[in-house]
């Protein structure tokens, strides 16, 4: 245990992802955990682990001093913030550095410059990068937002100034909605980012969300690693991402990459970062924000460009140049689905709990990043993302086929997940043809699929057999009230499921 130690100021899937990068580099990972996470996978895979408080994030994962104390007590010399939590908190980054530790991320000044959406907009405007019309300072009250709406028109998008990852955003379609939306957005911003400043910008409808991955090192070199298509969003939360975007031509890619590198250089960017653009239907693109951290959807870029972004971040933080001698060429197409612990059949209600059985998909071109395994508990205190399914294919069509296979092969029992939602979504002709925008899922209604009749027959027989064998412990109990139609599902069972009459 004389290898250097890296403290991961995060939990769940991204903490496990960073642990793997540490192992690949011969670094010893140090976990922190709230009371809700004592038995979590990221703790069990680490060499050191420190308790940092009660379940609510604001009393544990969001408390800088507890993280720093944990680093001190375990002798960690590096701190990786992951995404969310304190990852874009410039003060925290500064404190880490002042404590003599290495911050695995960009300089605090770069975070500060880009972390405030309003300041970053000002910087980009100064650098000649096109931006969407929006407020240049946080709104002091609801009236300022109403005034901006009257001047620029509705709909508006309310955003947390310290936010990111789609958290705490809200659409305001008319002046009458402003007051309530202001209060609600501010409350969520405070609870998630410990910073209640919010602002508004014009919502350009029908546009796509396309973002460019950049990587900079201490030599001043900044490169772009292509774009990601992230237009499929629900409640402003990305749910499915692709690399590359089928909507981006090589010429457009070159332009976006050029602007992204310029944006990075404008803030002396060192580390992995993402420059987000709004891509309008007419091909114009606008700077939205820059995320000065690793992104949930980074694996699609990794698969297409053959690079380990988290490993690069750690290398770069230690003062080494990035390992990529030349800009790598893209190969094939990758897609990621974010698997959430939620029930798509019941309005996507959160579905925390114990995972009774987990079958992870496997095989060629498949990557599963998850923060849980068989028997683990998904606590109700945090983001509901339990896994990411990432597939690679020679082209987009092959990647789509593989993703359907992966979603069918997977089993998650004990909690509900968004897997059935994705299975339906990937049958939508517009999704298959990439005719989407960031509003696409607002209008898209999930309908649970009717199970095939032979599967229903098999399930009923299995349940009856199981109930007979374990009559005492598993006998079916009382009934609930039923509906109207007949059991026509049985009718054709005889054709498809080995039947004698």
């Amino acid at each position: 245990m004389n290898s250097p130690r890296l403290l991961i100021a995060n939990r769940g899937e991204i903490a496990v992802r960073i642990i793997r990068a540490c192992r690949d580099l011969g670094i010893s990972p140090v976990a922190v955990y709230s009371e809700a996470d004592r038995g979590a996978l990221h703790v069990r895979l680490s060499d050191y682990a420190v308790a940092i408080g009660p379940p609510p994030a604001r009393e544990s994962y969001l408390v800088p001093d507890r993280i720093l104390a944990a680093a001190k007590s375990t002798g960690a010399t590096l701190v990786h913030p992951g995404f969310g939590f304190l990852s874009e908190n410039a003060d925290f980054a500064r404190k880490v550095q002042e404590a003599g530790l290495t911050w695995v991320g960009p300089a605090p000044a770069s975070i500060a410059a880009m972390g405030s959406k309003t300041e970053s907009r000002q910087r980009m405007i100064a650098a000649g990068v096109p931006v969407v019309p929006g407020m240049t300072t946080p709104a002091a009250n609801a009236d300022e937002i109403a005034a901006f709406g009257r001047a620029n028109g509705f709909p508006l998008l309310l955003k947390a100034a310290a936010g990111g990852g789609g958290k705490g955003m809200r659409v305001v379609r008319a002046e009458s909605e402003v007051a309530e939306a202001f209060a609600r957005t501010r409350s969520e911003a405070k609870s998630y980012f410990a910073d209640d400043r919010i602002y508004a910008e014009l919502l350009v409808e029908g546009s796509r969300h396309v973002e460019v991955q950049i990587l900079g090192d201490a030599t001043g070199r900044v490169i772009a690693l292509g774009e990601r298509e992230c237009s499929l969003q629900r409640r402003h939360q990305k749910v499915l991402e692709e690399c590359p975007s089928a909507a981006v031509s090589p010429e457009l890619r070159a332009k976006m990459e050029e602007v992204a590198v310029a944006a990075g250089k404008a803030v002396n960017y060192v580390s992995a970062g993402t420059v987000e653009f709004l891509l309008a239907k007419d091909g114009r693109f606008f700077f939205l924000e820059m995320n000065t951290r690793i992104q949930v959807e980074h694996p699609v870029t990794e698969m297409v460009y053959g690079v380990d972004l988290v490993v690069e971040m750690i290398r770069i933080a230690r003062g080494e140049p990035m390992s990529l001698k030349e800009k790598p060429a893209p190969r094939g197409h990758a897609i990621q689905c974010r698997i959430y612990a939620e029930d798509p059949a019941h309005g996507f209600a959160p579905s925390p709990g114990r995972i009774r059985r987990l079958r992870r998909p496997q095989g060629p071109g498949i990557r599963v990043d998850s923060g849980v395994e068989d028997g683990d508990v998904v606590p109700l205190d945090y983001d509901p993302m339990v896994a990411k399914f990432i597939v690679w294919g020679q082209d987009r069509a092959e990647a789509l086929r593989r993703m359907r296979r992966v979603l069918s092969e997977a089993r998650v029992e004990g909690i509900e997940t968004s897997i059935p939602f994705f299975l339906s979504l990937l049958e939508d002709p517009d999704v298959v043809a990439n005719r989407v925008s960031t509003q696409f899922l607002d209008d898209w209604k999930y309908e649970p699929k009717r199970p095939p009749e032979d599967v229903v027959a098999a399930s009923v027989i299995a349940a009856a057999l199981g109930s007979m064998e374990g009559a005492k412990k598993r006998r079916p109990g009382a009934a609930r009230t039923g509906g109207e139609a007949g059991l026509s599902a049985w009718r054709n069972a005889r054709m498809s499921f080995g039947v004698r009459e």
Partner: protein
Amino acid sequence: MKFQVRMPGQSEGRTVVVTAGAPAFEATLENAVLTGDALEVRDGVWSLVGLDGRQIEVSVAFQKDGSVRASAAGALFGFELLDELTARALLTTGGRAAKKVRHLTAAMPGRVLRVLVAAGDRVTQGQPVLVLEAMKMENEVKSPREGVVASVESVAGQAVSQGDVLLRFEAGSE
């Protein structure tokens, strides 16, 4: 053994009679006789191979409410399975008659962020009465009916489980 099975959204159940158990099962579903080979690979996970070779792996989990949750390739659904005695008992006691809603329960686990009403308040159907936070999302809980709040059974900051009573209505207040 005889069972009644009912799919969600269907009022009438159908009869399933299992005349031979695992492994060489034989079951009658209405008029059709289904036979094949059944193996419980592990607790609740079954592989069924029909006479025509059709193989289906399905996991069946008995839920607390007595329903069954089935999970197979790309399919996830629930149904009710009752042995005949239970089914008849329910029919006799009229167990299925709809009841009036006397209280509001949590549809999901979470933390109560804000309580928007107090005992004595009159509320309309659909009116937000609480804000529940779960997995970093604020979820408005709406009143399932019109009526007068008899008591609020939860306070801000409290963690609630699915099914916990959040507030009660006065009897006959709708």
